[in-house]
């Protein structure tokens, strides 16, 4: 299972963003990823906007049962939903894997598709490569990735052209650090 922030291969484009103040905690996680207490996985079918969003809704309900702070919950829900829509809109389908720990959540999205040619550019608000069909459905405004970056404590994207793309983010449950 592709759980941790594993080492990248050289033929892959990579992007990593960590919110300031979280560097040490994120590095600790990358170096020694612990065993997850609870995991959830859900498939994301290609261009299926009816079921896209189900995985993030499931995660939100699970976190509510754990009594996670509502503001943190919202950040997880927004990040997961945006990433889920991205996979549905751009790839040939993929999966969402959520790993829950007592102090944080780690969510991984794997897909097969065109890949993200220029990740830095994709992080610019308003930049979008979404096709006509996706835009007609009201998605593809180019705010997905910037929104995840804003809400997650750490975001990493690794992508190979015409191959696998992996997006993962970490969100800590306690907001003071």
């Amino acid at each position, binding site marked *: 299972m592709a759980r941790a922030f594993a080492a990248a291969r050289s033929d892959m484009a990579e992007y990593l963003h960590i919110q300031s103040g979280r560097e040490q905690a994120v590095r600790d996680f990358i170096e020694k990823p612990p065993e997850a207490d*609870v995991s959830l996985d859900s498939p994301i079918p290609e261009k299926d906007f009816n079921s896209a969003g189900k995985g993030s809704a499931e995660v939100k309900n699970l976190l*509510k049962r*754990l009594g996670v702070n*509502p503001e943190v*919950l919202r950040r997880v829900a927004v990040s997961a939903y945006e990433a889920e829509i991205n996979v549905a809109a751009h790839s040939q389908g993929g999966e969402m894997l959520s790993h829950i720990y*007592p102090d944080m959540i780690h969510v991984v999205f794997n897909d097969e598709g065109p890949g993200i040619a220029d990740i830095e550019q994709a992080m610019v608000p308003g930049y979008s490569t979404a096709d006509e069909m996706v835009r007609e459905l009201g998605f593809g405004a180019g705010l997905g990735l910037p929104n995840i970056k804003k809400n997650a404590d750490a975001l990493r994207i690794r992508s190979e052209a015409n191959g696998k793309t992996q997006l993962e983010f970490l969100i800590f449950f306690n907001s003071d650090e």
Partner: protein
Amino acid sequence: MNKEESQYYHALYILPDNCTGCTACVRVCPTEAIRVRDRKAWIDPNRCVDCGKCIEVCEFHAILPHSDPLDLIQNFKYRIAILSSSYFGQFTEDISYEVAKQAVFELGFDEVQEEAMVTEFMISMIRDYIRGNRAKRPILSSNCPTVVRLVQLKYPSLLPNLFHLEAPMSILTSYIRERVMEEKGIPEEDIGIFLIVPCPAHMTAVHQPEGAYKRLQDGAFSIGMIYGRVHEHLKNLQNNPPQIDTYPKGLTWALSGVQAELVDCEDIRTLSVNGVENVMEILSRVEDHYLDQYDYIVLRSCTNGCVGGSFNVENPFVAMSRIKKMIKEGENAGLDTQGLEKLYQQGEFDVSPLAPRSILELDKDIKKAIMKMKKLNEILTTLPGLNCCACGSPSCYALAEDIVQGKATIDDCVVLLRRHSKEED
């Protein structure tokens, strides 16, 4: 049966003799509040939101709404009825608005007032509130008591977004009580004010109001019960049409869509949502800030708004059509809103901040909650996943949750029991 103590009143109760344990109510409950144990349904008072879905679905009349007895008005010298707007959608079109209203006097009331009187005032108060609370966008309507309880139970992060002023029937109650005491010199304890309500949630709200600084009404009667009582007076009144004030333009309050349209204006964008499933989906999206473009969201648990309440006798679509006709054709009697304005400025319509009543947490301690979640997932893999309800819990997931919380055992699963007994053969 494990009867948990609860501080919560509910306007519905179970008649165990009628209950067959069929689980129809268990499946339909939006907050998973009902379980069948020992072949009888039981409602968790901490989870019930008084939506009335179980009353509607029960074929055996085993879940009944609570209504105060009409005799209750005899305890007061001066009796006032306040009619919910949906009342006027219940009658066939040969019965006029005036006749339907006058008929309530015949039951022994000294005054009959209407929720519809204050609709216009409410709309301006709501607009005022939205403009003064832009940071809490979107504001969520709080008139439907089921919606308020749903927010407390399942979406507590949205509590600050609820419209924090009294509902129209409560505003009217304060205003009328004050006026009658002043104009007629009747002492407070002699005045009885009663609501004629469309649903169990409003019945509960009269007996246990959320956020109210004082209890306002002296009782409530269901529209269905009043409808049955006024019937014998209708014929007589039709022959002698009464001359009384009516407020057809205000009947919009019974219809969630029309109410949203009225609040909507240049600087306020509104959305109208009805039906409990839709309400829950929208609340979840508001929680994630996906509906921040709206300033005001009208949320009603019943189809089309209060016309869909389970105490009504007419179908919600027919009732809506009749009310729309009345709104179109009628003219309001004049109403001096100075008195209302004064009470509003004095803060008489304020409600206290509402407290969360979260029902979802498995445990207060997150480490323990995670342990329970792990166990829950383990149990879930052994359950058949049919969601058949035969155990008395609404789904396999809910049974796993009940087992983890010590409220059920794996032996409650009928399907597993059957499989095991076959293996033993």
